[in-house]
């Protein structure tokens, strides 16, 4: 009793010794809300030194401030669906943090409250990989989620987020998901033999068909990065040696429609990074993270320059010295703004593009992230 009373007396002493000044405005903690119109930038950080605790940062691109975060768990992958006000995060939980029963799920976050509003259970086959855009996609009509599996044998999980119904689609030896723009139930994938598979899912989500065409790239001599950018109803891919490869995945088999050798005559330079380029489809310009001293194994090296390549006039428009970048994306709402991950200095950078010269300069940054790999500015 004495102890209890002792504590109570301490309370009491304070109660009499303190009071409110007449003009004091007593505060109560509130919860911040997000502007519905802010320039959203999402950054997926695998946080490798504490891999169970990956996170996705939400930035306001206008002032490069951190506005909130989403839990990404162990090797989580993100997919923003701004039209639905959702952020999907495919991840893995264990019953005892790092041990015990494994649960793979897609967590559905509301993109205003930043809270989990739904969860879609998955079989434990999803690729526990670094977040690349092409590993977690949605069909072009937004109705299906398409997620890469690897056990290490590869397949793709097609998931209807409304009904939670799922179809596993075998794609042995292939990786990456590239939804067709005009056929909502079709996507392509890159395969280890240099072909692309084209998968068409049945509307009832009960079966799928796959066709494979001719070789579309040389996985030995000049492999393609698995990041790809949309340009109209084609995809632009990028090769390790700097070739921009335009591919149509709309038909029954994928076909290369154009190849541009961006780095021709500059043999020492090559693209590098985890998300090494972005395309402004309207202006027809590709922005590519380039490094010099290119060699076997340098394909994830950080940038020494950003090259702006004019896809229409097929010429290099500008080279801008911006170092340390490993991932790059174009703001959906503003074709003169890029956002990038600087893995070397652990920061997120905003870049401004001169729409005349295509020269690029940093215009803002925030110190953030440990091992961030994917950056998106979807609206």
């Amino acid at each position, binding site marked *: 009793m004495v102890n209890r009373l002792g504590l109570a007396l*301490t*309370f009491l002493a304070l109660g009499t010794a*303190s009071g409110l000044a007449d003009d004091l405005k007593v505060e109560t*903690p509130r919860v911040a809300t997000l502007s519905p119109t802010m320039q959203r930038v999402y950054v997926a950080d695998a946080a490798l030194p504490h891999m169970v605790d990956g996170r996705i940062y939400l930035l306001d691109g206008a002032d490069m401030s951190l*506005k909130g975060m989403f839990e990404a768990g162990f090797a989580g992958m993100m997919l923003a669906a701004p039209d639905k006000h959702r952020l999907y995060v495919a991840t893995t939980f264990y019953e005892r943090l790092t041990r015990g029963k494994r649960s793979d799920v897609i967590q559905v976050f509301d993109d205003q*409250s930043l809270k989990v509003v739904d969860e879609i259970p998955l079989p434990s086959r999803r690729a526990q990989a670094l977040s690349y855009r092409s590993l977690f996609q949605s069909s072009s009509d937004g109705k299906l989620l398409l997620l890469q599996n690897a056990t290490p044998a590869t397949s793709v999980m097609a998931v209807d987020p409304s009904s939670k119904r799922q179809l596993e689609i075998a794609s042995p030896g292939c990786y990456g998901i590239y939804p067709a723009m005009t056929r909502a139930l079709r996507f392509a994938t890159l395969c280890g033999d240099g072909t692309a598979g084209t998968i068409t899912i049945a509307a009832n989500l009960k079966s799928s068909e796959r066709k494979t065409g001719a070789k579309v790239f040389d996985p030995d001599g000049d492999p393609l990065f698995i990041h790809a950018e949309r340009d109209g109803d084609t995809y632009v891919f990028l090769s390790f040696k700097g070739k921009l490869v335009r591919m149509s995945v709309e038909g029954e088999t994928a076909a290369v429609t154009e190849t541009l050798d961006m780095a021709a005559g500059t043999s020492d330079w090559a693209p590098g990074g985890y998300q090494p380029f972005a395309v402004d489809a309207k202006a027809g310009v590709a922005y590519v993270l380039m490094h010099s001293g290119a060699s076997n194994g340098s394909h994830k090296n950080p940038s020494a320059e950003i090259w702006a390549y004019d896809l229409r006039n097929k010429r290099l428009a500008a080279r801008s010295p911006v170092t340390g970048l490993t991932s790059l994306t174009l703001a959906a709402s503003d074709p003169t703004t890029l956002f990038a991950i600087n893995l070397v200095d652990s920061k997120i950078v905003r870049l401004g593009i001169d729409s005349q010269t295509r020269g690029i300069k940093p215009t803002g940054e925030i110190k953030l992230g440990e091992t961030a790999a994917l950056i998106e500015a979807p609206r």
Partner: protein
Amino acid sequence: MSEIKFTKLLEAFDRVAETAARRSAQTIGRRSALSAIGKLLVGGAILPVLPFDRSGSARADTAHGAGEADCEYWRYCALDGFLCSCCGGSISACPPGTEPSKVTWVGTCHNPQDGKDYLISYNDCCGKTTCGRCLCNGNVGERPGYRMGIHNDINWCMANTQSMYHCTVSVIVGVAEGK
């Protein structure tokens, strides 16, 4: 809000006391204790008047000019944790998706602007994984856990349903009268 916090804290004390009374042979004078605590509700109703050290009024080191994202800002004199100002919230707002802690610890910090000492409630923001930015470690007036209301080496999200710690806000809940 302040009343709510205080009530919750009392409830928490009572809950454990009850549990203990049921389980062990020890006798705690619940009526007397509650009676003593009850006086507080008369004395300083709207303050979350937690125990604190009167001699511990703070003098922030270099408070003049420090911003709300600097550990040196005057209100942070007893804050041990991540500043919500760096995490999508502000000095008095939790980031989106989190909720303020139901119980708090209280510091007394000196505002160099008006020369007054203020009681600061350090609410943790709860329910999201730790923010990790702007770690500060102020300990003016801090005491070990036997003075729990002014102890900061503990997760103050502990009484929330979702008890994960994200970051800490610093809200003014009173002014300490001159010494």
